[in-house]
């Protein structure tokens, strides 16, 4: 465990891939295999359940140290990281027991799920007495599901691949699949990878082609003849490649997350696709022939967990049961392990039609519809008409061009719905903690309802530097109340903000949620009274049943291939 702690410390402070690489190699050189297996698992897969609440942990630290609650709270305020604070409060062990990483995970962490609360307390307090503070810190994180994987996963994969002489692709593919250190040792995992290398055409995700937003002010006629363009519907949701590999189907999102456990409605038909296919499309929530407006940046995804065999999948919530996921396919990037990226788009579309035709009409895997255009203004009219349907944009693909590799000038454009623009009053500013402490991270804008401001949009302060410094000064001088990093401000400044859609929501005070809200400008001379009213925003609301808001929660592995 001491070695793992040192590795974590080195990885946290490593500002270059070479430093991270040296730390990983040094760790693998000295760590016993059983510990190294757990380390690889922790650094790539582990999320773990929440075995304990922080309140429980605080209570047990109080019992262990005899410190009063107010002093424990004061320590938390000072250190900010509660897991670290609780670890540091405990006295150092007289003599460290040198517990191994495997020993801690298999004998101190995993057994907790089978123990009653008294047993958990006794085991945890016993472990605290045996570990030094830095090791207690990681132990506490595992217990309370506050474990954050460090960066440099790709460096780890590169180091492992070099050490065992396996290809990075094979190793990445193996690590992608669920595995646990109890089932496989690092050596057996690597042997499986070496076996994988013998398989022809091992699949990896393809790079995503860059898509540019068409500037709202520019006329579409600049693109030339509309007959040279294919116009596809583009739905709200994360852009994702659907990979049919061996006996399973996985998703690779544009944000760099692996979706291992895809919803059944997508997984079932996708398994009928030919082996080694890669589809490109958008994963969207769907209800009664209508796409729900899911903002990919805000989509809630539950982290993967597979450390314990007896872990049961979380039952779907009532709200989630009312909607389903649909994968809207745009393109076919590979078929039967053959890269199609150098083929013309028309050929790929024909093969895609053939592919989807062979598996029959399914609810979860759908062809993204082609919008026939005779002239460009029809595109704008189509978008305006489709605002209520949950359509996010139209995607324009140059017909003669190949999709990949990306040509020098991009040929894909996204024609978004014209933004809805409103004015709101600055209500709250969220300051940043940590090294950028004091900077404004987020602004909350409110609109009027019965002479009171109601929060309507939470936006990043994407403004010119002079406006930002003005806001920072305003925050310093006009904060009326503070809640941690949140400063409640006097309602004086007015901003214009934009969004793609207004969606009904029961969880928001205003009764709606804005899709992709963003700041447009600071309205210098505007009075707070000139801000919009809730009623004006609700007029623009997409009529969606509130019960459909929460999308399903697929398991996701984030950051495994961050640097790919």
């Amino acid at each position, binding site marked *: 465990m001491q070695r793992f702690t040192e590795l974590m*410390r080195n990885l946290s402070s490593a500002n270059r891939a*070479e430093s991270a690489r*040296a730390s990983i190699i040094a760790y693998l050189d000295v760590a016993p295999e059983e510990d190294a297996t757990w380390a690889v698992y922790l650094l790539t897969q582990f999320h773990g359940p929440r075995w304990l609440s922080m309140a429980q942990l605080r209570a047990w630290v109080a019992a262990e140290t005899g410190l009063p609650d107010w002093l424990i709270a*004061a320590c938390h305020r000072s250190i900010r990281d509660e897991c670290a604070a609780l670890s540091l409060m405990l006295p*150092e062990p007289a003599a460290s027991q040198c517990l191994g990483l495997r020993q801690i995970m298999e004998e101190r962490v995993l057994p907790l799920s089978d123990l009653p609360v008294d047993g958990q307390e006794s085991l945890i307090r016993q472990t605290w007495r045996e570990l030094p503070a830095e090791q207690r810190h990681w132990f506490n994180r595992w217990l309370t599901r506050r474990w954050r994987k*460090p960066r440099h996963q790709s460096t780890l994969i590169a180091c492992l691949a070099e050490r065992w002489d396996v290809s990075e692709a094979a190793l990445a593919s193996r690590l992608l699949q669920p595995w646990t250190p109890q089932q496989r040792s690092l050596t057996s995992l690597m042997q499986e990878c070496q076996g994988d290398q013998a398989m022809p055409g091992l699949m990896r995700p393809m790079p995503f082609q860059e898509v540019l937003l068409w500037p709202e002010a520019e006329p579409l006629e600049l693109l030339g003849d509309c007959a040279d363009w294919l116009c596809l519907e583009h739905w709200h949701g994360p852009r994702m490649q659907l990979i049919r590999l061996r006996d399973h189907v996985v998703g690779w999102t544009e944000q760099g997350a692996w979706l291992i456990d895809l919803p059944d409605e997508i997984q079932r038909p996708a398994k009928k696709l030919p082996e080694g296919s890669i589809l490109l499309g958008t994963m969207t929530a769907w209800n009664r022939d209508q796409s729900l407006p899911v903002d990919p940046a805000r989509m809630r995804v539950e982290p993967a967990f597979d450390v314990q065999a007896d872990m049961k999948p979380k039952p779907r919530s009532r709200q989630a049961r009312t909607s389903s996921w649909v994968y809207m396919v745009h393109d076919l990037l590979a078929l039967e392990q053959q890269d199609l990226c150098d083929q013309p788009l028309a050929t790929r579309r024909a093969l895609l039609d053939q592919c989807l035709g062979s598996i029959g009409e399914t609810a979860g895997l759908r062809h993204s519809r082609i919008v026939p255009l005779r002239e460009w203004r029809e595109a704008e009219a189509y978008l305006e008409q489709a605002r209520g349907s949950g359509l996010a944009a139209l995607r324009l693909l140059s017909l003669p061009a190949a999709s990949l590799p990306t040509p020098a000038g991009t040929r894909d454009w996204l024609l978004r719905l014209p933004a809805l623009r409103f004015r709101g009053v600055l209500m709250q500013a969220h300051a940043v903690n940590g090294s950028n402490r004091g900077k404004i991270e987020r602004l909350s804008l409110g609109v009027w309802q019965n002479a009171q401001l109601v929060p309507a949009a939470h936006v990043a302060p994407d403004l010119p530097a002079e406006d930002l410094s003005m806001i920072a000064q305003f925050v310093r001088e006009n904060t009326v109340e503070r809640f941690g990093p949140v400063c409640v401000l006097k309602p004086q400044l007015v901003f214009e903000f934009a969004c793609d859609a207004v969606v009904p929501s029961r969880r928001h005070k205003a009764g709606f949620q804005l899709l992709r809200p963003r700041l447009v400008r600071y309205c210098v001379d505007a009075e707070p009274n000139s801000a919009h009213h809730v009623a004006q925003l609700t007029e623009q609301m997409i009529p969606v049943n509130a019960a459909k808001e929460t999308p399903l929660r697929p398991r996701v592995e984030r950051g495994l291939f961050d640097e790919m």
Partner: protein
Amino acid sequence: MPLLTWTERGLYCPRGDFYIDPIKKVAQAVITHAHSDHARRGSKSYLCSRAGAGLLRHRLGQEISLQTLPYGESLKVGEVALSLYPAGHVLGSSQVRIEHRGEVWVVSSDYKRQTDPTCAAFEPLRCHTFITESTFGLPVYRWPDPSHVLEEIHRWWSANRNQGLTSVLQVYSLGKAQRLLAQLNPSHGPIAVHPNIMALLPAYRAEGVAFPPLISLADADVIRVRGQGMVLAPPGIKSGILDSLKPLAFGSASGWMHGAADQRGQPMGFVLSDHADWPGLLQTVHETGAESIGVMHGFVATLVRYLTEQGVHAWPVVARAG
């Protein structure tokens, strides 16, 4: 009348008519040590320990009116007997002991209980009233053994050298830098220091503190340090003078590195402080046997409340002002 009272100019002894570490210009200032938040310019006359005189003159100027007092010797100032004792914080740092008709007050100022080869070790003094600092007055602050920290620093240095990186350790210029320099092993590689740190070394050498061979960052041959050496620089210096030594690996040695185990992208942290930690503060309060404890600097309210709940008469020094 209390022997010490808080005024707008700082901690004042009415019976001796002097201030301890005044925050404004005064006629007579007793300076506990040469850090800038304790030693300020502009007072008419200064008194400090003999060991701290060099540093104080360096900080405040050679022309100041300065009287020195060896540790343990007593000086009659007004109606009180004043004596200075080692605080173990930096070279020449002192506790101020004031005695009047059998009543003894001690002002610890900044102090630490760990060993430091560059200054005399802290001596607990029996007194009636003890005024303590509380910079790290929370139970989360418990310092590791400094010898282990030093080993960690050397390991980090070696690892960086193996990767061809220059190690840059960010430390306070006065105190921490010299404490580390006196203990760094030059066999690991050449050691360079920032000119601000270099300028303080003669005062230490004059008091018999030995340092390994050092190169100033302003010297032309500092290039020898590149890729293998250790550089000690004040916090905040990340480029400019260091550019010729790139690639760099940054580290930081401070008590505030405690609890920074997984702060991503931050320099490598080494927990090394020149202040007393929580157990050190409580141990000192106990060893002085004081009936009354004044608390200043840092987590004042927390330490006062904790001591009060433990049955000790404790009070915040500044809150008593006026």
